[in-house]
């Protein structure tokens, strides 16, 4: 399904953040979903719809996600969404993707490390619901040629592996690769500050020895495990109140499709975006009364 048609399949009925009857949103049954709608990235709108239905109660009732400035996200054309990253199993990615897809009716592709691609079942499911290996050519193609929304967390696992004591302190934004891709693709960057993910699955401490033995980026012991027990606690989030603030889009006054961009400009822009998100977070935190009720 070409992106333009796919867009119309994502049905939105509401912009209000209250639960609405969803009877009118029956997805059209596909004769054989796996034979028909998996796109070149492995995303399936049908699977995405199922994922949205499963996640919707979580989004609306558990996290009670609330957006500010959603209108700043372009309704057409490519854009790179950049957000802060947190929680042992990041809860921010599904919340952002779900929010934009239901509120704006645009698919969002989430970039993540290639480690996903190596996992049986998980890797396949992850790509079905919009995950794409974070690779410059992939991002460029999605942004420039297919004019899609692409979500990236420049902190990577440095963000999600933070202990609770370091919450809302943004890590280094990689090597600025996301800025370079946006420049090359000629699309704006839309920064998003996410509050709530840090408290949804906070890490108390980590087991570096175990992580090394298992070949995983980190193995956390979370507060959830202590409260809900080791099994349930490793998958169940705390009902932290989510607030998401979309900041002003940033466009770059450079020509697209250059083989290389000035390193200093890339790093300055990258650091500038990091600071904007960090400042917005401090402000949101100052205004927050309660972790659970916002």
């Amino acid at each position: 399904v070409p992106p333009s048609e796919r867009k119309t399949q994502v049905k939105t009925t509401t912009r209000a953040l209250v639960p609405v009857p969803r009877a009118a949103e029956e997805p059209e049954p596909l004769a054989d979903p796996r034979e028909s709608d998996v796109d070149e990235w492995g995303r399936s709108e049908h699977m995405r719809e199922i994922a949205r239905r499963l996640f919707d109660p979580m989004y609306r009732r558990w996290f009670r996600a609330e957006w500010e400035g959603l209108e700043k996200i372009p309704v057409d054309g490519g854009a790179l969404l950049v957000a802060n990253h947190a929680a042992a199993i990041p809860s921010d990615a599904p919340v952002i993707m779900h929010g934009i897809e239901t509120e704006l009716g645009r698919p969002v592709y989430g970039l993540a490390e290639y480690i996903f691609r190596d996992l049986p079942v998980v890797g396949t499911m992850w790509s079905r619901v919009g995950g794409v290996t974070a690779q410059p050519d992939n991002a460029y193609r999605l942004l420039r040629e297919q004019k899609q929304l692409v979500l990236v967390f420049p902190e990577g696992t440095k963000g999600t592996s933070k202990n609770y004591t370091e919450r809302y302190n943004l890590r280094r934004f990689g090597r600025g690769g996301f800025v370079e891709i946006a420049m090359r693709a000629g699309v704006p960057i839309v920064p998003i500050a996410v509050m709530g993910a840090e408290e949804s699955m906070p890490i108390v401490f980590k087991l570096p020895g175990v992580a090394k033995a298992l070949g995983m980026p980190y193995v956390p012991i979370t507060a959830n495990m202590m409260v809900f027990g080791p099994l349930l606690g490793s998958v169940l989030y705390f009902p932290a109140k989510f607030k998401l603030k979309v900041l002003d889009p940033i466009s770059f006054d450079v020509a697209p499709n250059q083989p290389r961009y000035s390193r200093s400009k890339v790093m300055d822009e990258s650091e500038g975006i990091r600071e904007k998100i960090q400042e917005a977070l401090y402000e949101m935190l100052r205004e927050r009364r309660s972790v659970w009720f916002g």
Partner: protein
Amino acid sequence: MGRRVLVTGLGTFWGGRVAQALEREPEVEVIVGLDREEPSVELERTEYVRSDENYSILSRIVKATKVDTIVHTFLVVDSTTMSSRTMHEINVIGTMNLFAAASAPGSTVRNVVVKSSTLVYGSSKEDPTWFSEETPRTSPAHTPVERSLLAVEGYVRDFAEDNPHVNVTLLRFSNVLGPDITTPLSSALELPLVPSIFGFDPRLQFVHEIDGLEALVAAIKNPVRGAVNVASRGTIGLTRMVRMSKKPAVPFPPQLFGGAVDAGARVGLDRLSDDFKRLLRYGRGVDLTRLADEVGFVPRYTTVEAVAEYLGAIRGELVPEGAIGPTGPITMADPAEEVPAP
């Protein structure tokens, strides 16, 4: 004066078909075909020259026939059909001799078209979804066939650099699929069960034999410099392909897959090449922008159509005339004819 073309591997599927197609081009004056074995397709005006597998006599032939174009179709990409030693002789030494002949003093060669394979990109978790011709390999070469093809590409680059007056086109073919050609994958699809790796649904890409042949002819007629990917459009997930084949997939855990397939080979099932085992995990797709923009050839099949037609053919279904089959000037040989695999 018309074009004078030398085709290597005349006895193989590609060499024979390219020679047939060139015979219908009025601008091609002379076609010389080289191989160890007699060509198996019907040829009218192609001159067949017997050679050994690594073309030690090539430089004399180039001199005698004064060809301006060499089409090197005889590169082995299926490692299951021969020992890696023979493959090395054919791919590496053969190509070396071919370039030695083409760059000999007084050589009349101005165009060289080499049919390589997308195997040179490898297949790993760090790869992009689509490989462009410039995408570097992210993993080291794992198998002898990949190593030999990378060595060939090295010769191609060196030759192109040393001989700027010669146009060298390097066509990187995806896995071929078509009713008339046997490849590692087509034999896997003919098994009663299709082996797969549990939890992975790789995106595979194929080139229909007609697209492959037309791309070769287009590259001969319109020489471009450098590497060009050749494939039918789009990709297909393995799951979807297995469903279309109406055969059960047998998923093996990743750790057991290699062993299980090798055990199958020992009891008489077809061998799967090592590179293909990796492909069943991570898949591979190539970008076709250069093929369209520079060679000026847009494949007529999608990968899905190529698979559908192939599956129909092995089930003995007849493809309706003109439905998705060839409509251009190229007609395929009599289907009753036996065409050995390259």
